[in-house]
């Protein structure tokens, strides 16, 4: 029957030509509709393009035929094929006097062209003419085209006509003229800034359609500049009141709601105006309250208005009564069976939670249901809500959930986002370092290629610096746990590059530190990594550096080093590598193996990755040498800036200039002979001395010393950053816990591990009505999410304490009190404001120095700067000869004298690391370096 109907319809259209369409077009549509494959469709379209190209070249095409062709072109382009050969015909058609043809022409050009297309210039004139037409439909068509085709340069050409049209007798024209002006305002606010008052005027238009249209530009204007529209608050409120009282024509009703779209727009505007403004908000209370009462929540559009009211209330300064009404509306949404409404409820909850944080508690089970829901959109929204309500008491559950979800999805875009959120929450609220490292491992393992490289650097830094206090024992435990977890993970196939870098670095730095693992075991693992990921140079570089460190520590501790055969072959392979970086590392490693223990120890001291390197920027150790040279008649160094402002840009750091006479103009004749050398002045003469001569020596050091001054202060900055803390330590006293001590053990044993939260929970739809039957698992999850109640907190605490020692990672603070756990039934008393019990030691204090991600970034660039500054020194032969007496092994290893000249012990390696960081930062293969910028900055 249905088929018959469609056949009949087709026949009817075939013969009558539908909206003036010919048989050919219908045939085209039909054959494309019947195409079985994309290839077949393409073939049909390509032959159609051929036909059209041929036909369009024919002379004297009848207009009706031409219109037909143009419609076919539009259709072809919608299917994704290029129809640009026919654009010019569409442009021509806009010139036609026939309304039908003109409209077709306009339709085609608005779909074909963008505002910067070359052909636009041919249309502007037509548009100008059409805007003045007597036929309002022609005017409408032109206004339609304006929105799409007019750019900043052509706005002035049509602006006067459009402004005139604001007073057109037809409301359809007024409406579109306002929209066109709005579009101009969006494109180029300055071009219409003098016309903004027109929008206010049109708000009083007696046609509700025009008034409604005016709300669109006003919304934009108000969101840009709230202050100058405060006077309209009462007007908007009274309009909304009139609308809700059904003063508008019946034709604006939609599903028995009076003009709902206008109401929504008004509510949006009110939200803007009432934000942070008590008096404006108070004007709105009445009408908002009415809306909550009147809104029909059985229709979709009624709920749309309710939702908009909630949004409005979350923006303005609400009265407690309105908040209550909003909370009621939200709970209705959440209890609904419709996923759309649940989504709205979760969204509303996320908005209101900022104002009244306890609102989420009564809906916790609904939220958890949404978390288990098969609907992805709803799930994501719920995660967003959880993200907003994360605090230190529930971070473990939430982040665990997020990671489970992250692992389950394939969408890289969202995976990146949720990974960055995990990292952010973990950094902000982490209860312990172990936990933080575990979370980071998971994030790296499953989304490693999507994570910002800074996150990896933070993690390495955390492991290296540990608690940042004197607690060395805890530090080494932390490292051991990291090493153990990495040794477990390392043999898994296909780990992300970034994660391998972290693993290699940590294994190199701490793999053998506590003697649990032998050097050959670790180095074997590292060789495996280098082998397995032989195409990834960065990973290989990290692995080789790690090997070097392992061997260095072995040599330094006086043990005999047996280089594994696979390691030897790896080194040999890399000696011939095409990558200079890998080659260099391999040579360095080879050279290091030949050194004695004393030299090695100064090259790569144990656990010194976080020591600061002090580079002697003034090169004061050269003073004696310079003195000597000057006394024996050498030219003193003249900095480049002093020599000539226009000299070619050679590196002014290169110190051998004082030996090579500058090849620009020479000014010695005017110089007073000064016995003291350049660098000695550097530290004393910071203030430029006003001297008549531009070229006097007094100016020389200023450039260098000011640079060094700046950089040394940056180093200082970095040190300060180390003292940063974790997020706010929102722990409370554990007094309440003492009330129920005897049940503690029972509670713990019978309810294992809520904290991990990975246990699957059965999805349930009814939670409120059948309270006693609620799955206890879910209750506990709810409790730990919405927590604050002592039972959930302590339950989780002790359970986490239970599983940590099993992994050998536990470093429970010694002062921890036995935390009593309340019996399960208490879990239902979520609302009860019992104090959260937390371990007596402050975990946040111990984590000092962990969170200084920003300072570390600053730090790495610092060191890079130092490195580039210092680089010429190491390569200058004169310096080399000077230093040759320092160590007889220096020739073999370029890093040795570097570490001795500078006071910081481990400079070479840290420099190398930072060079690598720099390399990777610049490296185009690094994953989206800017993606996390705002999240992790």
């Amino acid at each position: 029957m249905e088929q018959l109907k469609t056949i009949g319809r087709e026949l009817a259209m075939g013969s009558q030509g539908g909206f003036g369409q010919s048989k050919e077009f219908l045939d085209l549509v039909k054959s494309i509709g019947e195409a079985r494959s994309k290839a077949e469709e393409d073939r049909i379209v390509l032959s159609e393009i051929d036909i059209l190209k041929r036909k369009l070249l024919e002379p004297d095409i009848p207009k009706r035929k031409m219109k037909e062709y143009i419609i076919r072109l539009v259709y072809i382009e919608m299917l994704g094929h290029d129809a640009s050969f026919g654009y010019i015909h569409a442009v021509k058609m806009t010139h036609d006097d026939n309304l039908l043809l003109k409209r077709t022409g306009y339709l085609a050009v608005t779909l074909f062209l963008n505002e910067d297309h070359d052909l636009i210039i041919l249309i502007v004139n037509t548009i100008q003419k059409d805007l003045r037409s007597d036929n309002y439909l022609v005017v409408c068509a032109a206004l339609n085209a304006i929105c799409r085709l007019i750019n900043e340069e052509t706005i002035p050409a049509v602006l006067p006509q459009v402004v005139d049209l604001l007073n057109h007798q037809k409301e359809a024209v007024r409406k579109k003229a306002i929209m066109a002006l709005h579009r101009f305002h969006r494109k180029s606010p300055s071009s219409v800034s003098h016309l903004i008052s027109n929008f206010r005027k049109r708000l009083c238009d007696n046609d509700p359609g025009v008034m409604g249209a005016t709300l669109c530009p006003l919304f934009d204007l108000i969101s840009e500049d709230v202050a100058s529209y405060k006077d309209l608050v009462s007007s908007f409120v009274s309009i909304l009141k009139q609308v809700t009282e059904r003063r508008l024509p019946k034709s604006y009703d939609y599903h028995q709601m009076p003009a709902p779209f206008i109401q929504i727009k008004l509510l949006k505007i009110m939200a803007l105006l009432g934000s942070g403004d008590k008096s404006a908000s108070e004007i709105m209370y009445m009408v908002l309250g009415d809306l909550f009462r009147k809104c029909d929540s059985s229709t979709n559009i009624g709920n749309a208005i309710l939702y908009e009211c909630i949004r409005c209330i979350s923006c303005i300064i609400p009265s407690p009564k309105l908040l209550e009404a909003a909370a009621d509306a939200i709970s209705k949404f959440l209890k609904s069976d419709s996923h759309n409404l649940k989504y709205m409820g979760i969204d509303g909850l996320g908005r209101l939670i900022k104002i009244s944080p306890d609102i989420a508690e009564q809906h916790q089970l609904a939220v958890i249901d949404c978390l288990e829901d098969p609907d992805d959109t709803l799930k994501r929204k719920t995660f967003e809500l959880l993200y907003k309500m994360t605090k230190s008491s529930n971070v473990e559950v939430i982040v665990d959930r997020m990671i489970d979800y992250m692992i389950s999805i394939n969408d890289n875009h969202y995976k990146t986002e949720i990974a960055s959120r995990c990292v952010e929450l973990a950094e902000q609220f982490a209860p312990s370092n172990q936990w933080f490292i575990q979370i980071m491992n998971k994030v790296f393992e499953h989304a490693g290629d999507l994570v910002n490289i800074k996150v990896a650097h933070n993690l390495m830094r955390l492991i290296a610096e540990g608690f940042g206090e004197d607690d060395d024992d805890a530090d080494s435990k932390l490292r051991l746990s990291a090493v153990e977890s990495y040794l477990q993970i390392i043999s898994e196939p296909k780990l992300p590059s970034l994660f391998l870098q972290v693993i290699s670095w940590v294994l190199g730095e701490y793999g053998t530190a506590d003697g649990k693992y032998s050097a050959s075991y670790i180095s074997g693992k590292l060789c495996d990594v280098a082998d397995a990921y032989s195409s990834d140079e960065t990973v290989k570089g990290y692995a080789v550096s790690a090997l070097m460190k392992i061997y260095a520590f072995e040599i330094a501790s006086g043990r005999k080093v047996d280089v594994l055969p696979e390691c030897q072959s790896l080194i040999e392979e890399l000696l011939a590598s095409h990558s200079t970086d890998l080659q260099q590392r391999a040579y360095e490693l080879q050279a290091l193996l030949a050194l004695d223990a004393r030299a090695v120890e100064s090259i790569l001291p144990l656990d010194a990755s976080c020591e600061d390197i002090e580079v002697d920027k003034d090169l004061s150790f050269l003073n004696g040498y310079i003195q000597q040279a000057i006394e024996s008649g050498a030219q003193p160094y003249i900095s480049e800036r002093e020599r000539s402002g226009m000299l070619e840009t050679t590196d002014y750091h290169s110190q051998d200039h004082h030996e090579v006479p500058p090849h620009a103009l020479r000014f010695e004749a005017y110089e007073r002979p000064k016995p003291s050398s350049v660098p000695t002045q550097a530290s004393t003469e910071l203030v430029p001395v006003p001297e008549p001569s531009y070229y006097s020596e007094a100016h020389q050091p200023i450039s260098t010393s000011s640079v060094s001054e700046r950089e040394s202060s940056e180093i200082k900055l970095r040190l300060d950053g180390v003292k940063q803390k974790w997020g706010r330590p929102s722990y409370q006293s554990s007094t309440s816990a003492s009330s129920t001590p005897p049940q503690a053990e029972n509670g713990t044993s019978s309810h294992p591990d809520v904290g991990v939260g990975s246990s699957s929970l059965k999805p349930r739809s009814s939670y409120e009505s059948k309270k006693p039957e609620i799955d206890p698992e879910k209750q506990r999850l709810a409790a730990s999410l919405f927590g604050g109640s002592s039972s959930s907190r302590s339950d989780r605490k002790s359970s986490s304490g239970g599983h940590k020692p099993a992994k050998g990672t536990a470093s429970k603070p010694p002062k921890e009190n036995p935390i009593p756990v309340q019996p399960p039934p208490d879990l239902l008393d979520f609302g009860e404001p019992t104090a959260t019990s937390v371990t007596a030691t402050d975990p946040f204090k111990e984590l000092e120095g962990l969170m200084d991600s920003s300072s570390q970034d600053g730090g790495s660039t610092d060191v890079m700067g130092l490195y580039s500054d210092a680089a010429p020194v190491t390569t200058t032969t004169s310096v080399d000869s000077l230093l040759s007496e320092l160590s007889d092994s220096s020739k073999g290893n370029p890093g040795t004298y570097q570490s001795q000249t500078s006071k910081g012990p481990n400079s070479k390696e840290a420099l190398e690391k930072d060079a690598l960081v720099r390399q990777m930062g610049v490296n185009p293969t690094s994953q989206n370096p800017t993606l996390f910028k705002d999240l992790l900055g």
Partner: protein
Amino acid sequence: MIKAVMMMNTQGKPRLAKFYDFFTVEKQQELIRGVFSVLCSRPENISNFLEIDSLFGPDSWLVYKHYATLYFVLVFDGSENELAMLDLIQVLVETLDKCFSNVCELDIVFNYSKMHTVLDEIVFGGQVLETSSTEVMKAVEDISKLEAASNAVSLVPKSVSRWRGR
């Protein structure tokens, strides 16, 4: 602001696509395909909203509705109300229903330019212009009448088309 309106059938063939920001033809196809692949992987009876940042850039939302063989899709930014957008689709469909009496996919396929006319009356330059389907119908009928009149002058009058009889 509304970024795009799309109609496509359940096989992913675009039936109507209108973008309110300029995209190249290739990009348009990519977006249509991307939207379709997201839509067809969604089960029945779940929410009609989607966050679609990955295709349309940050702050992009999508509302869709599935009617018989057609998906109606609206893409918009954060300044619109999701539920209201869902109802805007309803307005569009109700209007089309009045236009074609019991609208089906074929009506949309064969009345390509009329579809655009209807849509232009509802959404104008990315903003919701008119939401009363009777008003839209009035405007569309005015246009059809005038077009018919001008048509009659310049072209050989054809038999009155079906929709005009209503």
